[in-house]
């Protein structure tokens, strides 16, 4: 860690060697030689800079919204590796694969390097000055109502700048779009607990019943939850936590469950109510209204509707009753239906009757500076932007951190609608599908080159403000930080207000210094405070602690059975994988080559199908199958997978890019494209699991590229990966 008061920005200059060649060691010389290579020497160097010695700088991971703090290992002016920052309450020094691949986002050979202006089908390199001029020119005379800014989840000072900029344009049209977000859950939580995202204490629970929440994989804050999970498994008083996962397609979390219960897609709510009923029958006292409401959900009916055996249902109720506190989680698999909000309400109700609220579910501290609190994304934003585009209401569209052309269902015609906007500006790192539709593409600094502050939606302890700082000099001369760009743009409108800020760095620094007393003693010198802040890479504030307001749902309407269609007999589950998520990371080769944990497939998409169903259809592994929905078809290799309901097929999200460079383009298929436009009744979120498909063989067959060998997941009687029943193991004596 750096702990002297050397100016952080000068540091970058001395550290950089101005394009010093990296020796590909091992391929170079193989014998002692003299006078062939040049020694790299500094003109001036800070005391802590020595060749061959790494320095470590703290920053924030920008790969997802969890806001993990990272430590970058920097050597000879280049960042080599991202490691976890142990001081962070979110990730406590740990990382996921996705986070580590952040360096590949930074060093990606397919980054946009120059501002590009559309000229027919081609992009023409222009200067930044010209780009700014062009934006000013295009915005000139356009009413604020016709200017849309579409971003992904955004927080910290960038959000402040952006909202100020939108203000300066007299526009209220900042849309925060996340293709995959727990938006339904937020609404349900707000109803049940009074907050959108409470704190979950998996580690304090003795039983975790998760309805499709992939908290070890891609749900909310996976690194944090993984650590909680480790404690949960160890148990607080020697009693190991029990995880039961309920879902129709096995997730990574499901693969780690003690009992994985497969349910008919969409019946998660039914099961939740059935469990409440069973709990009542087992002697748990239920509020009368609840008892009445769950009365019809007797175990036979529930078993019949969900496909979970009565035996399991009884056992589940028994263990939930016996081991308290427990925790019931709710994930995307339960949310992604037209009745998603109802499912969510039912599941939250289960938490409430189990008395978990206040024990394993607590309110998060609220952010003391609401203006920097995250703007949370949802997919309803896409619907709104799309409608506005279709109606011609949007004249100028800015996009940042989103790729709606890729993630919007084909049926929305997003790309075509986008063309209707007069001027589209994409702030982009890569030429992704959306950037390719834009008129102007502005190249951004990578997260490892840029300044920023982040506040994650999920705050496990107090509020952590994470500082993002450059770990090395810019790789490309003509990229700009998003903050700098916004500052430049806003200066066009409000020059006087922002004149004091030379750049975004100055802005962030001033802003944080202004609130110094929130973070440190007033007496601390500004420089010292600032350097300590950068050195730590984060600052924790207590925030205001809240209490949850438990409100029992009065009515939960669950459909008797989910929709089916004789023409499209199967349900498509677009699965979210921990490394590729919504596809914005698909050009990071480590992630492409990192095998999917469950299927071990790399570099390609696949269609998961239950062997029973596959046998019915005559499909074997590697068959290229056509998955057809009402809105289109995709063709991908079949993978026979027991961890899926026989009436469902699953295709992972994230692959299938037509753009975004060499590592993303042409690998796999994009199931976003064929999704049906079905929405959650209450929130208007796209119901991701409501797409019905049919599946047919194309006659082609390939060898599935996967790590799993010919033996599949079978150990052939060898003692390789072994498991042991909990009643046969003595865990208390373990070190």
């Amino acid at each position: 860690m750096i702990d002297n008061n050397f100016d952080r920005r000068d540091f970058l200059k001395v550290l950089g060697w101005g394009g010093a060649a990296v020796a590909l060691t091992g391929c170079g010389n193989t014998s002692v030689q003299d006078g062939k290579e040049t020694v790299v020497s500094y003109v001036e160097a800070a005391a802590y800079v020595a060749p061959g010695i790494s320095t470590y700088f703290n920053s924030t991971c920008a790969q997802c919204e969890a806001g993990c703090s990272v430590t970058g290992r920097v050597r000879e002016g280049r960042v080599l590796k991202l490691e976890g920052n142990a001081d962070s309450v979110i990730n406590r020094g740990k990382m996921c694969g996705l986070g580590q691949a952040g360096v590949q986002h930074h060093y990606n050979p397919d980054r946009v390097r120059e501002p590009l202006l559309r000229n027919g089908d081609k992009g023409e390199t222009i200067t930044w000055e010209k780009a700014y001029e062009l934006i000013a020119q295009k915005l000139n005379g356009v009413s604020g109502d016709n200017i849309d800014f579409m971003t992904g989840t955004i927080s910290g000072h960038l959000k402040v700048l952006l909202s100020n900029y939108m203000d300066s344009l007299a526009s209220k049209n900042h849309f925060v779009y996340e293709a995959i977000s727990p938006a339904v859950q937020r609404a349900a939580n707000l109803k049940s607990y009074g907050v959108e995202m409470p704190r979950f204490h998996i580690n304090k629970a003795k039983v975790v019943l998760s309805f499709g929440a992939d908290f070890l994989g891609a749900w909310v804050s996976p690194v944090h939850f993984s650590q909680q999970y480790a404690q949960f498994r160890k148990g607080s008083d020697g009693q190991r936590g029990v995880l039961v996962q309920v879902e129709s397609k096995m997730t990574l979390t499901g693969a780690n469950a003690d009992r994985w219960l497969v349910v008919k897609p969409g019946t998660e709510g039914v099961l939740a109510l059935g469990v409440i009923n069973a709990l009542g029958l087992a002697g748990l006292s239920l509020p009368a209204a609840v008892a009445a409401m769950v009365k019809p959900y007797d175990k036979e009916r529930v078993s019949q509707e969900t496909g979970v055996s009565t035996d399991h249902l009884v056992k589940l109720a028994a263990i939930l009753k016996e081991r308290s506190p427990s925790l019931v989680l709710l994930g995307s698999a339960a949310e992604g239906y037209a009745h998603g909000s109802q499912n969510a309400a039912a599941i939250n109700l289960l938490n409430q009757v189990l008395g978990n609220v206040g024990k394993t579910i607590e309110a998060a501290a609220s952010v003391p500076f609401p203006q920097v609190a995250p703007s949370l994304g949802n997919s309803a934003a896409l619907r709104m932007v799309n409608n506005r585009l279709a109606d011609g209401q949007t004249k100028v569209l800015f996009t940042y951190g989103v790729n709606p052309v890729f993630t919007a269902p084909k049926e929305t015609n997003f790309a075509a609608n986008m063309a209707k906007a007069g001027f589209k500006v994409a702030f982009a790192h890569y030429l992704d599908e959306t950037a390719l539709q834009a008129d102007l593409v502005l190249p951004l600094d990578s997260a490892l080159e840029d300044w920023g502050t982040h506040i994650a939606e999920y705050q496990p302890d107090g509020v952590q403000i994470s500082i993002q700082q450059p770990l090395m000099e810019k790789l490309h001369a003509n990229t700009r930080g998003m903050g700098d760009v916004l500052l430049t743009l806003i200066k066009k409108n409000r020059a006087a207000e922002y004149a004091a800020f030379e750049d975004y760095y100055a802005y962030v620094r001033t802003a944080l210094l202004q609130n110094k007393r929130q973070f440190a003693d007033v007496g601390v010198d500004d420089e010292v405070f600032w350097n300590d802040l950068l050195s730590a890479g984060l600052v924790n504030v207590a925030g205001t602690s809240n209490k949850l307001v438990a409100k029992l749902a009065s009515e939960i309407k669950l459909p008797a059975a989910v929709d089916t269609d004789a023409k499209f007999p199967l349900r498509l589950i677009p699965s979210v994988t921990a490394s590729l998520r919504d596809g914005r990371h698909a050009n990071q080769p480590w992630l492409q080559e990192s095998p999917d944990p469950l299927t071990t497939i790399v570099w390609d998409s696949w269609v998961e199908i239950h062997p029973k169903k596959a046998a019915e259809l005559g499909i074997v592994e590697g068959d290229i199958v056509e998955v057809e929905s009402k809105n289109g078809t995709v063709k991908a290799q079949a993978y026979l997978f027991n961890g899926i309901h026989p009436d469902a097929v699953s295709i992972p999200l994230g692959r299938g890019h037509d753009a975004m460079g060499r590592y993303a383009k042409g690998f796999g298929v994009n199931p976003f494209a064929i999704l049906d436009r079905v929405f959650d009744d209450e929130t208007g979120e796209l119901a991701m699991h409501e797409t019905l498909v049919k599946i047919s063989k194309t006659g082609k067959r390939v060898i599935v590229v996967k790590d799993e060998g010919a033996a599949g997941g079978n150990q052939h009687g060898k003692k390789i990966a072994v498991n042991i029943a909990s009643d046969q193991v003595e865990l208390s004596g373990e070190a």
Partner: protein
Amino acid sequence: MSVTNLLENWSEFRHAHPVGDVPHDPYKWAMSIDLDACTGCNACSVACYAENNLPVVGKEKYAAGHSMHWMRIERYWPVDDTTSLEPATREFPDQGAQFLPMMCQQCEAAPCETVCPVGATNHTPDGLNSQAYNRCVGSRYCSANCPFKVRYFNWYDYPTTENVWPAEMTQQLNPDITLRSKGVMEKCTFCVQRIRAGERSVKNEGRVLKDGEVQTACQQVCPTGAITFGNLIDSESKVHQQWKAQRVELTADEQEKDKEADSGLRGYRILEELRAYPSVMYMERVRESAI
């Protein structure tokens, strides 16, 4: 003179290892992996790519079996009939999957070492199975004789292969370790570059490494802390305590506790009966019996 050398140090030259031998001192690097904590998330594998300059080979080469993941996460399905060739005989994997991080087991009596024609792979005094890339001629005998098949051969010259480390990507490479060119065998080293750096720095201080001062990349990153790495000699180290608690002996090919009917312990080593004496202990995944 060599004859005198031979005669004088005869007992030293006839010294066998590890059974009946003095333990390594002051270091014996070892690992324990708690499969109950491992979630199969692949973070360790990516960390290994980042730390050890592993090439991303791409789809075609991966398909051809040329992948280079020193640490691979294996996924098994619990089956009722273990001898069946079918992936799973249950209709649904209702007890989840079994994940297993598999890397070089740094065997104490490694089968790979004896067969190398050029002596490129040896056992070090701190208990590692070392691999000298520059000595390797690429006979691949070591891999042929490795029961775990955790040795990876450079089938192509990855540093010069298109799209492996294009343009700026080279700047990510860790300068502390050699970049392997074609025809060389490589494998997990327990992040030997970190171990060596740590050992050197404490030598400067005249002391021995304490637990936690050297971490492997996979251990450092593991979100659930499933991987423990450390010095097996050091009774303060977590890895020592875990091995001790699980009653797993480094130099045994059959553990005493396995002869007891229900020891309640879950430590084991893979293919222990082959007498390679692996340095990695796994702890069985636990399954709740009440549900």
